[in-house]
């Protein structure tokens, strides 16, 4: 797959010397410099506690940098109206975070509703999105706990796409699913991404998932960026930390070239 050239596409997100630390002083992110190009899928890879989720939250201002700046669409997150910024960014988290007291339809229609779209337009959009994520329209009136894990995660993706945001943040969205459902959702994600061409930042600790989905992989370790490379270069990297991560996963049959044959 060819990655779109950055100079043609410009930057959707940029981290400039970003650090993030708790009040007590322990640094979770230190001097991070990272660029996310428009329409690419950047995978943030790393072990637990490496700072990948925090990095994600710095993009939609769920966390604010203690030093440096994060630019979204060319504007620093400190300059953005936080609510406007977040409504322009789709957000998918591990166990979907669906509202248990909302139906599927209400969940998917959440951002359009708080954006005051007319009811019939919301309804239409919900039906359209259910189809996009491969769910039957009859599920619209169900409650989240009546769905399977895979269905819930699809609803989570549909909800993030509702207001057609240009940027999508996904925090281990398929982490809690069984391997078969996960493979299915990964394939569908790829197909969807080819069609919608969103800018996606995807957090995972699973190297296979990273190689399958990412147009670039950014490996993080202890709050620092180790390397950000396309999958084929990533597997050939000589960086000791990258090698260590690769070794931990053993032999690697899947690279970007033969994706899809699961």
């Amino acid at each position, binding site marked *: 797959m060819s990655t779109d050239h950055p100079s043609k596409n410009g930057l959707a997100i940029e981290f400039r010397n970003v650090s993030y630390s708790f009040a007590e002083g322990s640094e979770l992110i230190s001097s991070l410099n990272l660029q996310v190009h428009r329409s690419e899928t950047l995978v943030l890879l790393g072990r637990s506690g490496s700072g990948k989720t925090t990095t994600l939250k710095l993009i939609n201002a769920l966390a604010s940098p203690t030093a440096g700046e994060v630019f979204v669409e060319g504007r620093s997150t400190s300059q953005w109206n*936080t609510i406007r910024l977040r*409504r322009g960014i789709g957000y998918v988290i591990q166990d*979907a975070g*669906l509202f248990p*007291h909302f*139906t599927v339809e209400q969940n998917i229609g*959440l951002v359009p509703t*708080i954006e005051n779209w007319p009811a019939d337009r919301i309804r239409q959009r919900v039906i359209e999105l259910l189809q996009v994520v491969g769910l039957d329209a009859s599920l619209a009136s169900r*409650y989240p706990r009546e769905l399977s894990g895979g269905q819930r995660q699809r609803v989570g993706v549909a909800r*993030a796409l509702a207001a057609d945001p240009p940027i999508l943040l996904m925090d281990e969205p398929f982490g809690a699913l069984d391997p078969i459902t996960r493979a299915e959702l990964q394939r569908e994600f790829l197909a969807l991404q080819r069609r919608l061409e969103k800018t996606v930042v995807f957090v995972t600790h699973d190297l296979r998932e990273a190689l399958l989905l990412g147009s670039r992989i950014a490996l993080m370790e202890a709050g620092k960026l180790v390397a950000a490379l396309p999958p084929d270069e990533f597997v050939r990297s000589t960086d000791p930390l990258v090698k260590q991560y690769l070794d931990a996963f053993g032999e690697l049959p899947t690279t970007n070239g033969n994706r899809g044959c699961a």
Partner: protein
Amino acid sequence: MNVFQFISQNRTEVLELTLEHLWMVGISTLLAVIIGIPLGILITRRPALNKPVIGSANIIQTVPSLALFGFLLPVPWIGARADRLAILALTLYALLPLIRNTYAGIKGVDGSVIEAGRGMGMTDRQLLFQVELPLALGVIIAGVRVAAVISVGLATIAAAIGAGGLGEYIFRGLAMVNNQLILAGAIPAAALALLCDVSLGWLERRLGTRAIVPQS
């Protein structure tokens, strides 16, 4: 004459005292809801206020009821009428369960749900009214239930300061060493407490599970 004969012979008076009792309990619980729920919400937003607010409500709870009635007696306007005084005292007692349950209910909402809402750009207000309060409702109603049941019991003591209610019979019976009379106050009061418990328990289950079990 047994107690039931006494009640049926004096049914208008029993009914009147029961209604007085219910009035005191109802108004004080309502006031406690109006004050307690916003206070409970406030301390989820301002953690620094948590200890002082819960602490004060706790201290009030430890003051013996007769003493509290006595303390409030010199307060202007309030102390002028016994029923006002009784309602204020009952309200103060009912605050703790309401504040605590509102706080616990909101804090008990799944963190990933809150984060998803925040991440999608819900304002604090939208998050509170559309997510946190609906999901905390069952726990909050449980607090109302506890408050109401406690109030029914405490309201009997309000008769000591002349606020009326079913405590009238109890205090009269104590003074006259007449067990029938004491029971004539105690039995309807116990029945009221049970009624509050059952009806609010029903409401708690209905509203609390709405979030979990879909309505058909």
